[in-house]
């Protein structure tokens, strides 16, 4: 403990001497929560960005699990075509840099697929109650199209990793379990649903937890396609106030807090499944 504290102190000292920087932390609390004369305590840029990141990560993970299940089932299929298609999808998503995927995917999705869904028209003609619900679930209604495009692209990207985790979990269940289930007369789907998946689930939880934490951090890539997540807002604050280091250190602390919470949650889940 003392050694770690000593090392940290040394790093801080060295950084101070090398950097020509005047530290000033006073403005940070205001960037998270500010007091508005009319509305009381209001979330300011960093907190708004954090909420967007949380919403984006939650919806992407949900959608990624859906894609992941479909692709994993394709990967372990007995037929050639599902295996080939899902294999191609996984290899494409895993071996392409996420930045390229996000850039190309986002522009494709938002200009080709989103107009077909008619999101803009829906938001324009929605009732106030619906708009309120959209605000809580997805963020600002006028940015709904961008948010959904980014969610879809992130989910497509992460879905490949989730599929591999699910496949590994399923394939780690001993062949003996399959044989025993078949001996009882269960069909392939029933085997999967009643015998194999429940056992595989406990094995999948640690890597899935890691993938979700990774997703929260990867979601910062969407700041390059102008989704106003925590990284985008932090950049705006850092550039406007010219206080680079304080803003970015605070932002890292916020990401760290979110990921630590997730990590603790998953550890609790693992412990419950191990019982």
């Amino acid at each position, binding site marked *: 403990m003392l050694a770690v504290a000593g090392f940290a102190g040394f790093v801080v000292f060295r950084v101070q001497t090398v950097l020509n920087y005047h530290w*000033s932390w006073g*403005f940070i609390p205001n960037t998270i929560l500010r007091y508005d004369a009319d509305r009381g305590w209001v979330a300011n840029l960093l907190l708004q960005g954090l909420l967007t990141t949380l919403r984006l990560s939650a919806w992407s993970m949900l959608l990624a699990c859906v894609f992941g299940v479909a692709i994993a089932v394709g990967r372990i299929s007995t037929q050639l075509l599902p295996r080939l298609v899902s294999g191609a999808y996984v290899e494409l998503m895993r071996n392409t840099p996420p930045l390229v995927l996000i850039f190309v995917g986002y*522009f494709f999705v938002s*200009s080709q697929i989103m107009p077909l869904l008619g999101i803009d028209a829906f938001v324009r003609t929605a009732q106030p109650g619906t708009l309120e619900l959209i605000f809580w679930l997805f963020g600002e209604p006028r940015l709904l199209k*961008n948010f959904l495009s980014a969610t879809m692209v992130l989910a497509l990207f992460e879905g490949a990793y989730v599929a591999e985790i699910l496949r590994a979990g399923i394939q780690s269940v001993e062949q003996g379990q399959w044989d025993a289930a078949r001996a009882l007369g269960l069909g392939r789907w029933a085997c999967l649903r009643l015998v194999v998946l429940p056992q595989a689930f406990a094995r999948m939880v640690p890597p899935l937890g890691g993938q979700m934490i990774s997703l929260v951090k990867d979601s910062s890539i969407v700041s*390059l396609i102008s989704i106003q997540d925590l990284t985008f807002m932090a950049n705006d604050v850092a*550039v*406007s106030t*010219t206080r680079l280091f304080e803003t970015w250190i605070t932002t890292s602390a916020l990401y760290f807090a979110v990921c630590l919470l997730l990590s603790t949650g998953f550890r609790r889940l693992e412990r419950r499944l191990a019982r």
Partner: protein
Amino acid sequence: MHRRTLLAAAGATAATALIRPAFAATTLIDEIKARGTLRAGLSTFVPWAMRDKTGKLIGYELDVGTRLASDLGVKYEPMPTAWDGIIPALLAGSFDLIIGGMTVTPAREQSVDFTEAYSFTGVAIVASKKVAPGLTSLDAFNKPSLTVVARRGTPAATLAQEKLPLATLRQFDDDAPALQEVLNGNAAAWLTSAPKPAFAAVDHPDALYLPVEKPLTAQRDAMAMRKGEPATMAVINQWIAARKADGFLAERFHYWFEQRSWLPLVQS
């Protein structure tokens, strides 16, 4: 034989479905008025556009855009966008115009149409007293031992590549890290649009100095829109001419670029 003709018939029917009747498309200005909001893309570029302490966007381009929207009778909706992807975002239809201090360059003119220029700045340079003291011209920085920094995708970066081929150019996605590099003594000079170098030299008189007082190039900044909108272009150009004539643009330019009484709004 029978199957082949059937296939051909099916193909022809499918093809006719793709032929859409050509009707008059609505112009951009009609779309804006029908929607009731003008959506403009911009990026954080002090003092063209930045965030104040309440999180609101303020700056020269915000004043220009708000005035344009109110003169057109619609609401103004600024859409903060990463500068690297702002032209693709415009072409993909994320917003109507780019009102963010975009400089007219031939390369950009191939993808978008620019309005009349309404703001005239230029690339300027500020240098480090520690690393490259006492230099008085741009060419003095053209040495292999010197590193210069600029923001990626801006005319400053292009100028550095053209005029300082021997120096090492490091590009950043934003100006603030670039300035920090010069302050830390890792780079000799920072090239960016005026008036930032002058502001930086005033803020850090012990670390920075201005090798050349005046801007090195003349830049014309204008609004950008998708190609093929002549009616909208005419409306906006007429508005720009009117605002130049009544002095609105000059007054706003002076407020944001030639003095810094707005600084307390942004920094504590």
